[in-house]
């Protein structure tokens, strides 16, 4: 049985559910049935779903536990935020036609060179993918080439996002310092506050997540994906067979970073702010727990985990703010000790999945962590 036709077959369930719920929520809110705030709330969950999918690609399939993936997410967000800042134009508090408010406030007289071009949407779109991708390329090239792996890699990814956190807190970096970028007015000419724009952004997020799912599925089921799983499970053995594990890791690492960056770019217009807090190492680790809860090494699991965990977070922080950190902490301990395959593992136990690739990936996931 050749895997090629399977790789090309588009699984419809996940994209239909994701896009369908996005359209449904948008329609309910526009129709006045549901409160307006759930549009950006659900949009946020789906953006986290994109981040979780990206983390799962490297962790679940490449065996690389990244504790700094939120950095790529935030970089994409900053690129989009810069576009949105330029769209404010002279409507800022200080009314400067060229400079964003925080630069006027800091007594800057000219736009820094790296802000040029961001007034054009296509340029910003390229940067959303290029900046996280390039950072991942440089970082991954250095790390994988010298065979840094396991917890060492995890810790330096954490150090990476920590360094970016510190750097973006600085006012003279030119990204708004502590306050970040905010007070956005419109995107592509549409008012960012209006219900219709928000609904459109939510549906767009749903569509992008679906496309990324399809892409991830194709990648992981391709020949490349098979080798990647082999690298995850037995890196030395794969190397002895003549493959170059570092190249496979680097490709999936950069792809994952670009996907996370796109997630961040969709996140910022819906939330309305991007600040250095997004670089906090905790955010990256939370993304890892979404994946673990949903089921590492599956593609639907991380999306499910991101939505469910964040839904629980919204509920708990609203009613019992103290309890959320306890709950999150117990979730980490519980999932790793008792439920290593996540929610998808529970589903699989009841209904034996007939897709051999996914099942093999899930069963291999546990061994891979050694």
């Amino acid at each position, binding site marked *: 049985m050749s895997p090629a036709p399977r790789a090309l077959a588009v699984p419809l369930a996940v994209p239909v559910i994701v896009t369908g719920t996005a359209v449904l929520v948008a329609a309910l809110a526009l129709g006045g049935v549901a409160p307006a705030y759930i549009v950006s709330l659900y949009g946020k969950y789906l953006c986290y779903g994109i981040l979780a999918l990206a983390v799962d690609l490297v962790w679940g399939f490449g065996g690389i536990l990244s504790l700094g993936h939120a950095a790529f997410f935030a970089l994409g967000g900053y690129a989009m935020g810069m576009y949105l800042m330029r769209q404010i134009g002279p409507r800022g508090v200080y009314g400067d036609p060229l400079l964003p408010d925080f630069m006027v406030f800091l007594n800057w007289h000219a736009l820094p060179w790296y802000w040029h071009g961001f007034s054009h949407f296509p340029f910003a779109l390229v940067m959303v993918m290029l900046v996280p991708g390039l950072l991942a390329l440089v970082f991954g090239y250095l790390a994988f080439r*010298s065979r*840094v792996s396991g917890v*060492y890699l995890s810790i330096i990814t954490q150090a990476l996002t920590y360094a970016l956190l*510190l750097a973006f807190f600085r006012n003279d970096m030119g990204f708004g310092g502590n306050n970040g970028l905010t007070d956005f007015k419109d995107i592509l000419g549409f008012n960012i506050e209006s219900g219709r724009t928000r609904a459109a952004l939510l549906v767009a997020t749903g569509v992008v997540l679906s496309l990324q799912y399809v892409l991830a599925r194709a990648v992981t089921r391709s020949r490349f994906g098979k080798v990647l799983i082999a690298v995850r499970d037995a890196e030395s053995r794969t190397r002895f067979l003549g493959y170059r594990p570092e190249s496979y890791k680097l490709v999936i690492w950069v792809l994952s970073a670009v996907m996370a960056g796109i997630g961040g770019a969709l996140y910022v217009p819906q939330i309305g702010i991007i600040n250095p807090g997004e670089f906090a190492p905790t955010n990256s680790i939370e993304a890892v727990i979404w994946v673990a809860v949903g089921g590492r090494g599956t593609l639907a699991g991380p999306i499910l985990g991101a939505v469910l965990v964040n839904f629980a977070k919204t509920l708990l922080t609203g009613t019992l703010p103290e309890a959320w950190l306890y709950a999150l*902490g*117990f979730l980490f301990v519980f999932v*790793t000790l008792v439920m290593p395959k996540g929610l998808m593992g529970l589903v699989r136990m009841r209904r034996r999945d007939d897709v051999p690739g996914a099942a093999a990936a899930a069963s291999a996931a546990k061994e891979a962590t050694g």
Partner: protein
Amino acid sequence: MRALLLVVALLGLLVGPHGPASAEGGVAPALAALSSRHYDDIANGVAALAVSGDPRAAAILGALQGGRLYARADHALFIRGPDGTYVDAATGAPAADPGTLREVRVNNAVRRALDAGLGALRLFAPDAAVRATAADTLFAQPDPAAIPALDRAIASEPDAGVKTRMEQARAAAILQKPDASEADRLAAVATLRARGGLEARGLLEGLSGQPPAVAHAAAAAVSALDFDLRLWNYAQSAWYGLSLGSVLLLAATGLAITFGVMGVINMAHGEMVMLGAYATYVVQVLFRAYVPPGLYGLSIPVAIPVAFVVAGIVGIAIERLMIRFLYGRPLETLLATFGLSLILQQAVRTIFGPTNRDVDTPAWMSGATQIGGLQITFNRLYIILFAVGVLFALMAVLRRTPLGLQMRAVTQNRRMAAAMGIRTPWVDALTFGLGSGVAGMAGVALSQIDNVSPNLGQGYIIDSFMVVVFGGVGNLWGTAVGAVVLGVINKFLEPVAGAVLGKIVVLVLLILFIQRRPRGMFPLKGRAAEA
């Protein structure tokens, strides 16, 4: 203005700067001037009296300042006491009925002369510390008019240290004196150069209108002083770096055991440090409640074993309940212990509240000393000593005790150790408890220099991992060197790049370093490295 007055006074009234200090002969004209009705005379009298060395001078000038000095028509002076009685100003003898008196009036010029005079007078105070302070004040505000007073004071000064300071003040004044000879000025520049410090540098740099030779000497002295200051700055940075390194070492030593020796990645390690700091807080609260205040200084030495035991027991519990199910799965261990750190933080927040708790520094640990241009605070010094002590104690435990032997046996070959009758699960638990207990002791030290809050541990966890990885996993010496090197690099980068950027640079350098040497500065060699 004040200077001018003093100069006039001194030139007009003093017999000579080195003249004999015969009290009656020297003071009588000054007292006569004080009883004058002209403010100029009074100011001159004040200045003369101040440098006379007369034991009554302080009392008289003080009385004048307080508006308690009275003059009779025959120029005799009387001081009115608080109870309304009078004493003779010249002799100090009580005067029963002085007759008709008028108060000696002062204007601003006299007040200025009084201030200067009382300042110069302190050069003759019986207390050496007061004399030293007076000399330093004159050094900071050099005044050529004070030179005669300084000369007299130097001649009679018994304390060598104070004498040096007076000579330095005199040198500063000489450089401001319009008619000083070139040789005197050169000598003064040399004196200031020998004194060193920022003030001397400022004085030398601020000189103007000097002869070329003097200006040249001053410029040379300034650059020499700059060199000295730079050296002291380096020394100070090195000291700060050493201090930061000792803190990192304390936080990382426990980690070197759990991560380095056992290979367990414990993200809750920072929370063990935090528990140690809170244990210190609780010990201090109990001391305040139940122990006599005289013994309060013992609270820190008592807190050290308490923190060790508390954090150690929590560590053993973690190992038994959680980590032992995750051996061989480092990434899962990382996630589970991260969850645990969230729980511990939130638990402390629930019990003690989210705000910072006050942990006092006992009197014997506070204070500072100055060595040359180096400022050394005692609590930092104690922390460095403590860190070194902990390191050596830990090495002794690992090398000289049965537990250490068993630990090393288990890490080198678990199955063989088990076959020899070592209860490996217990060794694992005790090793983890030891590492956690050491982290708790680090918390005691950190409570002295950092805020005791539920987030205390978070700030150190990444740095601690960096230290362990940098130094080489499983190597305590490497950890020590790694901590000190990272601390010193951090502190040397800070003035150049700023605190935040310095930290970023260190992180980036470290990431690059791990690229080059993935196993740290001091990698283990031989079979242990294969694990």
